[in-house]
């Protein structure tokens, strides 16, 4: 039996609470008793964007609604306003803000959020500094540096602060931070004028991010209080941690273009860290000595990414990460990284580009990752073929099985086959492909070579070792509209590839699947 029509009022009010502002207002059309019901819920969410450019109507709507709530002494727990101060109604908007914000305070609104943005560099309306109940503030594009602002402080209840393209002077920023010590989230994005950020007094800070897009001469230096933080993200900034600091609650650490020598990363404790990304970070070698391996404990680490960190070149790292799920490395040298883990199903992705590669070093790396599903990309065929001890019967130790190997080409057939033979001494990939799908000419060359060497088994290309162990090789193609790979003859590839016009037409993918004999 249909009991929905019996839903009591208080349940309807709860459902109303969860509707967007627009849908809630729309319920006024349902029936007479619903006409003003939307205006009784304890949450208001006004966003200029939903009015699609009719600023005057938006301002009137907010003004009328807020007045109704005040005059009828209705309960208002949550208030969210998103407004821009760019158009000809700019001054009107500011004076209305000066009217509304005090209303929020007198009404005792517990959670108020304000987003103000501008494209021109206006001064921040001073009323924002006087908003006593603000919980979240998003400011885009304003100038917070002028002396015109009388009292520099923000609501002490502020929990979330997000500044984007705001021009702010350091002493102003410091004053602001000292006035709102309960902040839990702080995002500072592209804010010129800041050279130094100290957030040590923010004992509740959980989520901190600092981003700049350009490489500036002098990077902003950042100090934080470690204990409360759960997420840290820095781009083009210099963060420094105290030696031995314990990041008890940190789950996600993402550092890009950071001078990590001052970070003293490896002398800190990260018991809860699940994701670590280090990209283009210089100076790692300054912290670590190169004479013996450095043991790094990450008891909760699941995702590790190390990209373009030159400082690791001569460092040996042992990563003790029992729960690792995914390791990604990109660089122009083979790192000396090994893992200590119980993890049964993890993946590693190694991308080596623009460097000369030493086979023994590569062998060492692959062996240390052998418990994972390895995808290796070699963007350069300049391989230094130092001797890998190979016994006469052709077997070394068990060769590392790899999920995929993607390579470059651009050389002669005999050189290419000698590279393959060397690589097959240290690894047995299940799939092989070309590493750069956009370079039309080289893909053709790669596929042609692979076909001749692996499938046609042209004489004298593959070594005895490989011939003995390679049971089967097939070529597979997957068109952009297909979900599954299918086996294909060379002719199909030639036709399919030849059909490609233009740089951006979706390509078909090609790979070679290899079946190797099980070694003891």
């Amino acid at each position, binding site marked *: 039996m249909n*009991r929905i029509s*019996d839903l009591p009022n*208080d349940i309807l009010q*709860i459902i109303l*609470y*969860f509707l967007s502002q627009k849908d809630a207002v*729309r319920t*006024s059309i349902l*029936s007479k008793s619903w006409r003003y019901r939307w205006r009784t819920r304890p949450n208001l969410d006004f966003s200029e964007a939903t009015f699609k450019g009719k600023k005057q109507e938006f301002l009137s*709507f907010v003004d009328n609604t807020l007045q109704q709530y005040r005059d009828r002494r209705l309960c208002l727990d949550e208030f969210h306003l998103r407004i821009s101060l760019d158009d000809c109604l700019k001054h009107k908007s500011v004076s209305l803000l000066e009217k509304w914000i005090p209303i929020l305070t007198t009404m005792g609104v517990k959670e108020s959020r304000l987003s103000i943005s501008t494209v021109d560099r206006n001064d921040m309306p001073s009323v924002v500094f006087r908003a006593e109940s603000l919980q979240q503030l998003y400011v885009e594009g304003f100038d917070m540096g002028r002396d015109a602002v009388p009292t520099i402080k923000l609501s002490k209840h502020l929990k979330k602060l997000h500044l984007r393209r705001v021009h702010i002077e350091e002493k102003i920023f410091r004053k602001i931070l000292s006035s709102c010590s309960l902040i839990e989230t702080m995002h500072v994005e592209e804010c010129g004028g800041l050279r130094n950020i100290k957030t040590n007094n923010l004992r509740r800070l959980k989520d901190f991010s600092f981003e700049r897009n350009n490489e500036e001469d002098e990077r902003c230096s950042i100090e934080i209080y470690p204990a409360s933080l759960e997420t840290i993200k820095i781009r083009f900034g210099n963060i420094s941690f105290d030696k031995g600091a314990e990041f008890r609650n940190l789950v996600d650490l993402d550092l890009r273009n950071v001078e990590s020598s001052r970070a003293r990363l490896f002398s800190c404790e990260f018991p809860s860290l699940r994701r670590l990304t280090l990209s283009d970070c210089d100076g790692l070698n300054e912290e670590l000595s190169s004479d013996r391996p450095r043991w790094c404990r990450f008891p909760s680490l699941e995702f590790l990414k190390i990209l373009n960190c030159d400082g690791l070149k001569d460092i040996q790292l042992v990563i003790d990460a029992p729960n690792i799920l995914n390791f990604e490395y990109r660089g122009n040298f083979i790192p000396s990284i090994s893992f200590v883990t119980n993890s049964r199903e993890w993946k590693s992705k190694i991308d080596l580009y623009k460097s000369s590669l030493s086979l023994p070093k590569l062998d060492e790396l692959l062996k240390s990752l052998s418990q994972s599903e390895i995808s290796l990309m070699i963007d350069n065929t300049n391989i230094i073929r130092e001797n890998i001890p190979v016994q006469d019967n052709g077997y070394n130790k068990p060769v590392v099985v790899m999920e995929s190997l993607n390579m470059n080409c651009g050389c002669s057939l005999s050189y290419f086959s000698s590279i393959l033979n060397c690589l097959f001494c240290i690894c047995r990939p299940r799939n092989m492909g070309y590493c750069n799908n956009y370079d039309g000419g080289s893909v053709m060359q790669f596929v042609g070579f692979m076909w001749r060497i692996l499938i046609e088994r042209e004489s004298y290309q593959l070594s005895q070792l490989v011939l003995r162990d390679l049971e089967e090789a097939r070529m597979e193609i997957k068109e952009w509209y297909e979900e599954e790979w299918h086996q294909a003859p060379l002719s199909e590839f030639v036709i399919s590839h030849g059909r490609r016009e233009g740089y951006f037409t979706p390509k078909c993918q090609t790979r070679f699947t290899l079946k190797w004999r099980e070694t003891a």
Partner: protein
Amino acid sequence: MAAETGTPTTLTLKSNDDELFSVVESAAILSVTIRNMVEDGCAGGVIPLVNVDGKTLARVITYMNGISAIPGVGAAAEEEKKKSYRDKFVSDMDFETLADMVLAANYLNMSCLMDAVSAKIARVMEKKSVGWVRRKFGIENDYTPEEEAAVKEEHKWTFEGVETDDDN
């Protein structure tokens, strides 16, 4: 109670269509209504729940068992897992089931479940036409055509890009 022996106490719940269900007490007291009944000494026999039918009660019990099984590894992680469980729990319910659920959660005084179901109902409503909402909620349109047009004009920004036909 059974605290010393370590075996969990089970309660017997009876729906309004006389179906009986057995639930571990620690899961059942997620309902404040049931908890109060137990504290009032009602647990000896069967706990009658006059405002829930058997089909809905079965689902509620699945929810209770599911939520109380989530281990408490740490406040934030635990809360995230519970939220994810709730989202999944309501995700494949049709509107009629959601309505039964919200009434049951209200009667049983289970605020987190109530919020999750209400939020889901709100999301379902967002995509529907005015006619659909009126039908489903049993709301009779008592506006005259002029009044209705006036309301629409007053809040015309909310009707932009939305179907207002009665078929849906």
